[in-house]
């Protein structure tokens, strides 16, 4: 039996029209796939099309060329089995923290049941914000808001979790803590995760595989299989291989493509 990959991109092109009417070539000939329950990180320079890639998976935009499929089916619109953590927190200031977490239920089905609220509380506990359930969004720091966004993405227990630099607003310590927490969630409830980040150590610590993207127009420059045993711990960070891989990725990111 051959299961289709959870996510697959086949020669995807994405061209936007800028405000001045000039075309912006965001992605070019982008092909990769993510297996079911695989944890894949995407690293790449700013503006190379990482968020665009994520929007394509989410079905928020349609590719101008090539095809994007989920579980073997071309993406035509947003789908229920996907949870998204956006690059900006995108919380709704007119709702309390808990109501932001239950927002997917309220927005999709028009009502929130007691069990949804209970689950939301559990998720808030998970991201360390149990005491803030009834606070308003503007009473939270940027990092706390990002964590509310993570809890919200997990509410419907999605098969595919798309995360766009979810930890970038967190301090280093919380960041490590959240990374391990994410690994635990992923182990307990296996999901396919597509994780966009700017942090090489974060990508190495979390992923099965890392896609390194080229500058705009973005395509895959290199695919790196991350060899470390799971569960990964703080010790993983000290592994000499870890440092070697990190240096390798860093040089890949910095090197300009050889002129053809």
């Amino acid at each position: 039996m051959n299961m289709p990959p959870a996510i697959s991109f086949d020669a995807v092109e994405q061209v936007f029209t800028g405000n001045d009417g000039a075309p912006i070539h965001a992605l070019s000939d982008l092909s990769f796939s993510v297996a079911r329950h695989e944890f894949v990180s995407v690293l790449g320079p700013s503006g190379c099309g990482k968020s665009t890639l994520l929007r394509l998976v989410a079905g928020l935009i349609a590719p101008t060329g090539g095809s994007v499929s989920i579980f073997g089916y071309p993406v035509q619109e947003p789908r229920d089995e996907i949870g998204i953590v956006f690059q900006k927190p995108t919380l709704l200031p007119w709702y309390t923290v808990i109501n932001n977490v239950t927002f997917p239920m309220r927005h999709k089905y028009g009502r929130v049941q007691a069990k949804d609220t209970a689950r939301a509380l559990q998720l808030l506990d998970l991201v360390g914000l149990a005491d803030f359930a009834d606070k308003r969004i503007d009473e939270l720091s940027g990092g706390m808001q990002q964590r509310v966004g993570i809890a919200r993405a997990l509410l419907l227990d999605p098969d595919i979790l798309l995360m766009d630099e979810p930890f970038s607003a967190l301090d280093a310590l919380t960041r490590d803590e959240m990374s391990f927490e994410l690994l635990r969630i992923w182990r307990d409830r296996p999901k396919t995760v597509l994780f966009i980040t700017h942090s090489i150590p974060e990508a190495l610590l979390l992923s099965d595989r890392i896609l390194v993207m080229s500058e705009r127009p973005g395509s895959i420059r290199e695919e790196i299989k991350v060899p470390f045993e799971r569960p990964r711990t703080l010790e993983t960070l000290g592994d000499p291989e870890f440092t070697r891989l990190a240096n390798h990725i860093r040089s890949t990111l910095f090197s300009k493509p050889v002129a053809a």
Partner: protein
Amino acid sequence: MTNLNEKKTAISQRQQVLRLLDRFTPALAFVALIGLWEISTRVFSIPSFLLPAPSRILADGFAVAASTWAGHIWATMRVALIGYLLAIAIGIPMAVGLAKSRFLARTLYPALIIIQSTPIVAVAPIIVVTLGAGDLPRIVITFLITFFPIVVSTTTGLLATPEELIELSRSLRAGTRREVMQVRLPYALPYIFSALKISTTLAVIGAVVAEFVAADKGLGFFISFSTSFFKIPQAFAGLVFLVILSMLLFRTVGFLQKRFAPWSLPKNER
């Protein structure tokens, strides 16, 4: 030690006095202004038909029976309120239509701009002729003056909703109705409330203008009636009630916003 404490209490007392002063500055300024007005009318013996003294306005105001006042105030308030509420009830759904439908935007917007560019004061007599006696023409005039800012502000707010929030809504495939109700309209609330505040004063203006044209009751009627009999202080008393009415409506909207949508206010006003 005691010396230090005394110093401290002295400082905190001074701070308290300053804070009280700060708090009552507007009231004090108001009283001072009235005082100045009273004194200058007396010192320069300004005739009361040019600028009546506050004391004269008060006296002439009290000379009119309370029930008469109540009748006029109620007439104006009724028209202003009904016109205003009608403007909200029609203006906000219209704004949703303008924001969500390119077709409506292309057909309705030009018509709206024509209505807005027409001086309503000039059209008021025509409206009165067409719609006859009764509250109806007055309500229509008030409505026409108030609803444009509501439509424009609400549309602006609906369209200003950040793309990320719309993407969040789209990713949940919730449909247009919920997108408007749970995302766009709440986001537009600060815009809506600022229009609602401006429109309270416009509503009173609308009602008064309508009463100038044709009415046998209401503060606008009372003022034009008093003026035509050279009872200037009495007209001023009517004006005072108009100002109070305007302020009351304005304050009520502010209160409702604070009570039901505090997040839509800047932090220092909550």
